[in-house]
């Protein structure tokens, strides 16, 4: 494995409170301690003007394999991750069949190994077949490599089952991730319930459907001592509930998706199904509350909910089209545009939410950090390169994005996984024989 | 009101004299037992019909019905026009059956407008007869149509424009010609040419 020198970048590692211009050395798949290095490198990366940070970790993606390979495969999804600057993804278990057994989890790891793109960590189902009735074999899932549990897409509707899951998962100190939504309040729903759904005559999904389950699950986590993680938080009230739960010492965490802090339900006026997601786009006051939660660290994670759907599925009538958008390849530019360039977060704060915090959540001890000896998963971001998002260029098999045509500034430039340069936009990587710049 | 490049052929008094002569002829040829109905083709055929009818009534002492005909829906060049005209509506406040109908228009040119007007009138009923009265006949017919009563016949170039202005929708009566190259944009007073 090559010795790599990343030269002159702005090194940001929130896990060590680091933000300085300097050199980063990688050898044998590991990060060398800061200040360490050799006389010569086999690969030299000129990172001047760029951000060098721990590889980004997206804790919420759908890779569709097995079952819906027409939308995405583990290989294409993991390649899309790299193109977006993401070195590790946690994939949701709503495949066909669901990832609810050890064998299913091991299949994911095997396919990811074959693909040799980004690292892939399976998230196991909470219930057998994601049916919401009986607990899945959580212990065996952990043995198969599951890093967390969720029935994502289908909320765990039964309070009793959620309580058992929170209790039982304490055995493994794994988090339960919940898509919070009271199902009976969102029957026939297409978009956020409010003035826009009234205007368009589309079925509404009230914010209260999310709020009620967030409140319930925080309370259940409180009485069980389990870890509840609120997926794709989207409402002002839910942010407040998480904030208040944390204040009480409940083991609750929350993630936000870029579309939930950059778009609103007004976008649905185009009837474009690329604005149809679940949870739905909410109102401006919800967007502001989500940003507020990101700022005060009530929301410690930014995740994409990368949900690929083949064109023919998404090109249906809006009530027939499936929920969800691809997100891996727009994570960095949209986060930068909506949060950093607008002054809400600094780069170190945003990187913490996309790298260090996810590693801690999933128990990935050698990831999400640039300290010496850590896995050499590194993302190099060009923060100032004006470009236009073009879905046709996506590596993801699916192109269902609402951000096509957006003018953005930040972009993942070069991505190193396990000490290998697995993705680069070119121009800055020099191989063997190149001398180290003074 | 006079535009650059316009050449006035007839002024107000001249137009009055033409109207009087046309009304006289229509009054003379009126059939005693048959209703006489004037139908103006929108836009300037309408004030023309109204004024002719007033004059005929003065001469004969008998009422003459006046209607307005919207021929847009019958135009053969409709499909070619980029934006379709605002419809002003057909208003025929009398029964056209068995009446002597006189179609009235300001300028007779290719004859296509009158072809459309004939179709439009015949869709309203079956008149006893249809005649045509125009203020100006400028030639260049593309269809076998001739006027029965003409105020003024003039020779024009194929590309020239003939404009008629009539009270009360214009400030004064006059007939002008515009040589093609001097044409200024003044569609409201343009005679209805074929495409």
């Amino acid at each position: 494995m090559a010795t790599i020198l990343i030269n002159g970048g702005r090194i940001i590692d929130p896990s060590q409170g680091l933000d300085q211009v300097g050199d980063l050395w990688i050898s044998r798949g590991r990060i060398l301690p800061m200040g360490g290095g050799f006389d010569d490198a086999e690969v030299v990366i000129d990172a001047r003007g760029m951000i060098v940070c721990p590889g980004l970790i997206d804790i919420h993606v759908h890779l569709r394999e097995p079952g819906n390979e027409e939308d995405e495969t583990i290989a294409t999804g993991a390649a899309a991750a790299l193109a977006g600057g993401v070195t590790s993804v946690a994939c949701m278990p709503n495949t066909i069949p669901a990832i609810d057994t050890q064998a299913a989890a091991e299949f994911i790891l095997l396919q990811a190994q074959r693909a040799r793109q980004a690292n892939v960590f399976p998230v196991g189902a909470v219930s057998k077949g994601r049916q919401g009735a009986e607990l899945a074999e959580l212990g065996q899932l952990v043995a198969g490599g599951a890093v967390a549990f969720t029935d994502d897409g289908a909320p765990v509707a039964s309070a009793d089952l959620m309580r058992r899951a929170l209790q039982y998962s304490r055995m493994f100190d794994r988090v339960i991730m919940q898509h919070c939504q009271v199902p009976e309040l969102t029957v026939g729903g297409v978009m956020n319930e409010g003035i826009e759904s009234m205007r368009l005559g589309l079925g509404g999904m009230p914010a209260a459907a999310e709020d009620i389950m967030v409140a319930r699950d925080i309370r259940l986590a409180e009485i069980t001592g389990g870890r509840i993680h609120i997926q794709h938080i989207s409402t002002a009230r839910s942010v407040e509930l998480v904030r208040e739960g944390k204040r009480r010492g409940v083991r609750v965490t929350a993630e936000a998706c870029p579309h939930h802090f950059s778009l609103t339900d007004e976008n649905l006026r185009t009837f474009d199904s690329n604005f149809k997601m679940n949870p739905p786009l909410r109102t401006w006051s919800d967007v502001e509350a989500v940003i507020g939660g990101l700022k005060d660290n009530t929301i410690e994670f930014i995740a994409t909910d990368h949900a690929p759907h083949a064109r023919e599925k998404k090109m249906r009538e809006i009530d027939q089209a499936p929920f969800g958008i691809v997100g891996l390849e727009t994570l960095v530019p949209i986060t930068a545009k909506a949060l950093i360039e607008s002054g809400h977060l600094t780069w170190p704060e945003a990187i913490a939410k996309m790298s260090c915090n996810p590693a801690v959540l999933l128990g990935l001890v050698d990831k999400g950090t640039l300290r010496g000896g850590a896995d050499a998963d590194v993302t190099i971001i060009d923060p100032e390169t004006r470009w236009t998002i073009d879905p046709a260029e996506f590596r993801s098999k699916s192109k269902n994005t609402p951000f096509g045509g957006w003018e953005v500034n930040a972009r993942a430039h070069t991505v190193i996984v396990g000490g290998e340069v697995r993705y680069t936009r070119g121009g800055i990587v020099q191989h063997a024989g190149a001398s180290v710049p003074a | 009101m006079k535009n650059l490049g316009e050449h006035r052929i007839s002024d107000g008094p001249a137009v009055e004299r033409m109207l009087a002569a046309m009304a006289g002829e229509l009054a003379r040829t009126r059939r005693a037992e048959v209703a006489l109905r004037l139908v103006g083709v929108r836009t300037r055929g309408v004030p023309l019909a109204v004024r002719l009818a007033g004059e005929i009534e003065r001469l004969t002492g008998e009422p003459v019905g006046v209607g307005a005909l919207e021929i847009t829906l019958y135009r053969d060049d409709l499909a070619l026009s980029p934006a379709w005209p605002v419809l002003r509506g057909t208003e025929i406040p009398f029964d056209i059956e068995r009446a002597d109908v006189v179609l009235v228009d300001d300028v007779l040119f290719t004859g296509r407008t009158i072809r459309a007007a004939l179709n439009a009138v015949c869709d309203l009923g079956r008149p006893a007869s249809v005649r045509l009265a125009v203020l100006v006949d400028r030639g260049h017919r593309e269809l076998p149509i001739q006027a029965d009563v003409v105020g003024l016949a003039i020779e024009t170039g194929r590309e020239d424009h003939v404009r008629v202005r009539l009270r009360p929708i214009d400030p004064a009566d006059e007939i002008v010609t515009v040589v093609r190259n001097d044409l200024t944009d003044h569609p409201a007073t343009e005679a209805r040419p074929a495409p």
Partner: protein
Amino acid sequence: MTATNHAETAAAVWTRKHLLGLEELSAEEITAILDTAESFAEVSTRSRKKVPALQGRIVFNLFFENSTRTRTSFSLAAKRLSADTQDFTASASSLSKGESFIDTARNIEAMGADILVIRHPTPGTPHLLSQHVDCAIINAGDGAHEHPTQALLDLMTIRRARGKIEGLSVCLLGDIAHSRVARSNIHALKKLGAHVILCGPPTLVPRGWERFGCEVVHQLDEVLPRCDVMNVLRIQFERQQRGLFPSVSEYSQFYMMTKDRIRLGKPDLLLLAPGPINRGVELTPEVADGPNSAILDQVANGLAIRMAVLYLLSGRIEAGSRHRD
């Protein structure tokens, strides 16, 4: 007012390729359609009720939802303009075989359609289609979103009866939440200066409608004396099955227009119903057929409105410029 007067005041010239909804139209554009419709109302009074304006054009009725009345009205309107018409109903189509509605529309366009009249149970479908085909599109009802020609014929009926729309109090009665007729009426009536009152049980007229500038009332008898126009919307019985009101008989008790309720209103209260009406649910038969009812005028005006819309949109189809395979 005569047709001439309407036309003279119609400052707006129609420039749109499609009629997708009334929310996006200006007051001037709505008035232009109403004025044009007056010209076509005259055509319908002739012994020969047909003009050659749309000769050679093909109007396709693309209906993904049953509606004999609207489809018939559009067909007849197209025929009176001398267009060729063709009906296409989803049940008889390949849609059940998995063909997307966009593919279906493209196929129909390839057959030479100039105008697609589309009815679909999903909001926004005509809008989506307008991005994928070249022909002009008329929304003949998209789910609970809009039904522009229905609202236009309601407005035409009001204007013909009252000579104006501005300043009138117009009540829309019944299931507002699920009604495309209500939405199109609200947009158009507000733009033309009417006071719009929405009346029905809170499950069918939920909170939030005030934000469209409407007055929301749940007690019909309270608001009735103030109304100039009562537009009675159809109740779909499946709403009762979803528990939005306890029973049809309870609904009728509170909201059915009866002879007694007509007495509560102004003597010249104008009664509209988009139909098909459920006699004995929204209206009693004597009220439906009574002197306040303009239901049959609405049907006649619907024809004139649809002729006007077909005419105005045809004017925007550039001759010979469209791509055809």
